[in-house]
């Protein structure tokens, strides 16, 4: 890989778009702690991020929403050290505030009369949704497999769907536009967010450490993410 | 009878035009370049509308702003040979004639049969050639022929002999005279060659006698 060390006072971060709010907050906190250092974050789908790093983008730190995409990056030999998990997320059922499908539990989603949307099996939220159904021993036929979790959420907000499987953080972030229905822990699935450095720059490493630090973890918790320790 | 008694826009000016042509009669318009000969033909054919007054033919009013009458070009059945021909370059001669025939379907029976036209204007050899590749004189003959596929109510000839060779010229003049007689329709002829007017037995009128400055202009 031809990734050069970026200039001393800037940390360039690539992060999954579901981390937008969390990483914007993390960036400004880090800048306050390290005056003179600037953190710029470019967001995108995890798969886009993987392509960018493999394509030789001039980047210091990378954080994705799935271990699968991070593995791709690692296999391409782009990482300076093994990635570390820094956050987790669990799934919830999102329904419109009026709950037109009268959904109260996961098992109802197996009823074809309940219009359900989930993510496609290729994206992390789809993998998680499938795992939830497996854990609950349910066969669910959704009306659409969306490309990302925000699309699932948008369907529910627009009342196009009566239920959707989304991340807990999404339900939290959308306020009163959707209602969350919890999935019992025994049936729930967890996704893990890994982070890694791409360059040897000191700043990159410091930002990496900062995300894993107590202060960084507090920011993530505020956004609804679980701590990495909770991953199986 | 074609009657023009109207105010037209000729270039930047308005002008009163008065002209009457009997059925079967050919009137030759004689006047310098830019005197409005083509402009008069555009008004008769329905491609332009008069400002005031009226144009009528065979008792039917074609254009009279006063009574809000305007018969569109399509409905006037005028046989107009344009100064710049305006053929469809991409078609073959027969395709073009057939297309025009399809547009005048209901009156094609009264027109000149296709075979007769091809014979009369010597189009046999070039019938399947693309119009865009024809020589100047060949194109002129196509332009004339297509105007008689249906029976014309009026014939407008804007320099129809321009590119025709000597023998074709007299032959076409003859043919045109015959058609005007056959369809018993009024004809207007523009040519800058006195011989052409003679060949067509046209009553020549001077543009200065036809066109006058409107009162109060």
């Amino acid at each position: 890989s031809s990734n050069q060390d970026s200039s001393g006072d800037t940390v360039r971060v690539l992060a999954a778009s579901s981390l937008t709010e969390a990483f914007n907050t993390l960036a400004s906190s880090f800048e306050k702690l390290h005056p003179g250092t600037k953190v710029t974050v470019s967001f995108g789908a995890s798969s886009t991020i993987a392509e960018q790093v493999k394509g030789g983008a001039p980047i210091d730190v990378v954080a994705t929403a799935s271990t699968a995409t991070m593995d791709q990056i690692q296999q391409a030999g782009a990482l300076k050290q093994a990635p570390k998990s820094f956050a987790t997320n669990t799934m919830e059922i999102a329904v419109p505030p009026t709950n037109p499908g009268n959904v109260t539990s996961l098992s109802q989603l197996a009823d074809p009369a309940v219009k359900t949307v989930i993510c496609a099996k290729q994206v992390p939220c789809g993998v998680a949704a499938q795992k939830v159904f497996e854990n609950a021993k349910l066969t669910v036929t959704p009306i659409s497999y969306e490309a990302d979790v925000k699309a699932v959420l948008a369907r529910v907000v627009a009342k196009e769907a009566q239920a959707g499987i989304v991340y807990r953080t999404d339900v939290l972030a959308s306020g009163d536009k959707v209602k969350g229905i919890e999935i019992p822990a025994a049936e729930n699935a967890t996704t893990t967010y890994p982070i890694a450095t791409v360059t040897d720059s000191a700043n990159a490493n410091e930002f990496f450490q900062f995300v894993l630090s107590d202060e960084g973890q507090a920011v993530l918790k505020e956004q609804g993410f679980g701590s990495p320790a909770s991953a199986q | 009878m074609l009657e023009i008694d109207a105010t037209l826009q000729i270039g930047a000016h308005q002008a009163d035009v008065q002209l009457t042509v009997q059925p079967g009669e050919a009137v030759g318009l004689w006047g310098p370049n830019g005197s409005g000969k083509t402009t008069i033909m555009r008004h008769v054919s329905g491609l332009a509308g008069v400002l005031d007054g009226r144009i009528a033919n065979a008792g039917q009013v074609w254009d009279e702003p006063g009574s809000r009458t305007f018969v569109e070009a399509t409905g006037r059945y005028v046989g107009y040979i344009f100064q710049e021909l305006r053929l469809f370059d991409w078609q073959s001669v027969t395709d073009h004639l057939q297309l025009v025939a399809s547009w005048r379907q209901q009156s094609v029976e009264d027109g000149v049969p296709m075979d007769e036209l091809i014979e009369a204007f010597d189009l046999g050899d070039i019938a399947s050639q693309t119009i865009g590749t024809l020589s100047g004189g060949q194109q002129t003959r196509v332009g004339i022929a297509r105007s008689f596929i249906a029976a014309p109510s009026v014939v407008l000839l804007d320099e129809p002999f321009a590119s025709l060779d000597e023998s074709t010229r007299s032959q076409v003049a003859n043919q045109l005279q015959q058609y005007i007689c056959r369809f018993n329709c009024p004809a207007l002829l523009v040519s800058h060659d006195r011989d052409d007017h003679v060949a067509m037995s046209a009553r020549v009128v001077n543009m200065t006698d036809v066109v006058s400055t409107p009162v109060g202009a």
Partner: protein
Amino acid sequence: MNTALRTPRVVTVIAVVALAFLALPALAVLIRTPWSSFLHTLSSPEVAQAIWLSLRTSAATVILALIFGIPTAVLLSRLTGARAGWSRALVVLPLVLPPTVAGVALLAAYGGNGVLTAPFGIQLSFTTIAVILAQLFVAMPFLIITVEGALRGHGNQLAEAAAVLGASPKAILWRVTLRQIRPAIVAGSILCWARALGEFGATITFAGSFPGISQTLPTEVYLLLQTQPELAYSVSVVFILVSLTVVIALRRSWVGAVRDHA
């Protein structure tokens, strides 16, 4: 031999640079795609299904775009003044909408709770019709603007001649006006078709993605990129080859259109 048709050297040089710029990225992908993944792609029924859906929907889009877009272009080319400005702005609108927003906009108008559809209880989203509508929304403007530009580039001398010869307004339009700009109609159709074929954001937002119903090839590729990027590349390459086959098959009619015209 003919100066009028000689292409200045600088034009050729610039054109070759531009062509290389456009071709290189696709070649780079091609080079980096392992052949094994090709075989995998070609034998995948899912991929075949997505390609087939894409070809069908984009063909439908082009046909609808021709039916609705050409009259629109004709109307636009004849408007003048403020009305022309506003109508053209309406047509350009879908072009500048980011694709995802276009999808959201389509939902707002024609979705389950759409302004137009909700009162009649019509449910279009999640259907193949929704895929076609999304493609039509983003791709038809390309046809309209191309055709309008060409219409404005021709005078109406021949149209006038046709009117005198007895052609109805419809016949004039069909046999003269549109005949004169045939190459531009072909060009506009190709742009429209290509845009429809590559459409992703609006389709997935409005029509969702269900295999065989609304999972078009770009959606399939996007999803494959998540887990098997190599496979995504090879699917893209297959897609490119299919598209090129169509373009080259269409070339005859295109060249034909030109020869007729010359």
